């Protein structure tokens, strides 16, 4: 790719056309799996097992969805939503409080605490899942949604992100609030919080999407069929009826559509938030 670039560097228009063509081809390649999931979910068994691909479901059927809802798919959907929303709300609340304190307060242990948070972020998240299961067994929370929510809230990325956002608050405004006699909590909720709202929005979507898709954590923690989430349910369906692709695609559609919709609706906050999280120099 680099050699192509240097050869064409002299002819900017030629290179530009080449780049756009490649980008469009890639875009098709990246959209295609989602397209194939959704269209596949409306194809009947004969079409799916045919030896020639049908690019668009010519005779769409709902039979896969009927079959899907014979499974406890509604329970899985509900579990996934409760889990992701719970983790999202708790993360936003705790992380914005902590991020503000780290950015704007001067206190003993601040430097060490921040270093610990950075180090923890560089750790592989999945490695602590096995010992977490042992811990959850001891405190009798394994196989409940809490076992997924609590570690998600504990992951320090949110604190780091909120610290980045809180640093943009001018100190004078905080001092003015103090002079006006506002208490600590009042200052936070009526002065700080409105100013870091875009950051909280970014963190909310980020946590929601990540928690929804955190398959490994869910797989380890949630063992009984009624406590499963949608990703787990689909994975199990694939294990149990590995050739009923229509049914599996219906499940995948149900798992993917809500999260893709949330992402597309809020993608501006989302991309801004990810970019902000990395700006540390």
């Amino acid at each position, binding site marked *: 790719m680099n050699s192509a670039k240097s050869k064409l560097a002299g002819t900017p228009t030629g290179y530009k056309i080449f780049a756009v063509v490649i980008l469009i081809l890639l875009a098709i390649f990246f959209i295609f799996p989602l397209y194939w999931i959704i269209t596949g979910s409306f194809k009947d068994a004969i079409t799916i097992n045919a030896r020639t691909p049908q690019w668009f479901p010519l005779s769409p059927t709902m039979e896969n969805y009927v079959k899907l809802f014979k499974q406890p798919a509604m329970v899985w959907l509900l579990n996934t939503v409760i889990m992701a929303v719970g983790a999202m709300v708790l993360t936003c609340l705790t992380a914005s409080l902590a991020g503000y304190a780290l950015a704007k307060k001067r206190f003993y242990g601040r430097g060490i605490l921040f270093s610990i948070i950075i180090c923890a972020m560089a750790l592989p998240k999945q490695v602590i899942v096995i*010992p977490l299961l042992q811990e959850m067994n001891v405190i009798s929370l394994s196989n409940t949604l809490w076992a997924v929510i609590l570690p998600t809230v504990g992951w320090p990325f949110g604190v780091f992100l909120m610290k980045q956002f809180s640093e943009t608050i001018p100190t004078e405004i905080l001092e003015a609030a103090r002079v006006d006699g506002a208490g600590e909590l009042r200052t936070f909720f009526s002065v700080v919080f409105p100013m870091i709202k875009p950051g909280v929005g970014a963190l909310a979507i980020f946590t929601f999407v990540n928690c929804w898709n955190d398959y490994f954590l869910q797989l380890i923690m949630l063992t009984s069929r009624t406590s499963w989430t949608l990703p787990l349910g689909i994975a199990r369906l694939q294990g149990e009826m590995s050739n009923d692709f229509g049914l599996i695609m219906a499940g995948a559609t149900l798992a993917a559509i809500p999260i893709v919709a949330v992402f597309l609706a809020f993608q501006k906050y989302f991309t801004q938030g990810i970019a902000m999280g990395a700006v540390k120099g």
Partner: protein
Amino acid sequence: MEQKAAAKAKAPKRSQFSGMSKALVRRETISAYLFLLPSLFFFVGFVVVPMFICLIYSFFNMGLDSTSTTFAGLSNYVRMFQDPVFIRGFWNTVLIVVVSVPAVTAFSLWVSSAIYQMKPAVRSFFRCVFYLPVVTGSVAVTVVWKWMFNPYNGLLNQMFNTVGFDWLGNTKTAIWCIIMILFTTSIGQPIVLYVAALGNVDQSLVEAAQVDGATKLQVFWKIKWPQIMPTTLYILIITTINSFQCFALIQLLTSGGPSNSTSTIMYYIFYMVYRYNDFGYANAMGVVLAIIIAIFSAIQFKVTKTDN
């Protein structure tokens, strides 16, 4: 640049409490910790504690039944080096990381530099498209690929006229299929980061260079590349961590097979717990995996720093 960063880190240490009375410092400290308390509760309880559990339990033989737990010393660690499945998994993991990290970084840099100067709507369209597999979720993406790779009903074989070829059941192709899918689910975040970083490059420097007659390529390597270096480092590290932890793809596509050709350390940790309830050995492998990742990150840190 390094000196500047060091000075920056030192400066607030000396002046952190300057101009503050002792009582004020104490008041600030107490209120800061009250703000931090809820977050610290979750962080310590569900990140720090399991880290220590992982480390400590790696020195024990333990299964589901805690009464049979015995001290094992270093035997879990020694066992790893004699376990051919672990060694196979180690090399597979290294292969995945060594191929996917440079590929993801280079490719996302190319895409970002191609799209960052486009119209905002077009730019965010492409950014969304490349992020789509991440949002769709590893499970949904994996099951559709499993269907596309299917020997008889799969789209790939039907398109290439190779019906019957088992991509995932072949020791030569299986791991490359996994690397390819991992690639599609890994480039979303780097592209978002690079687009933001390229947008922040100091335009006055770029213009000055152009006035001096620098070519596009020179502008890129001499001006933009050094400025986006911190982003590159960050991308290298997060991609490394993610590639080392690749799990869902492997469990759902091949379960480590055929004949362990796609087994990785992460998958083997899972397998040990699920098949044998061998928590001691699994935790020891977790510790080793964390150390390997730390070494890789440190190397990347060193290399990108001396580059400047």
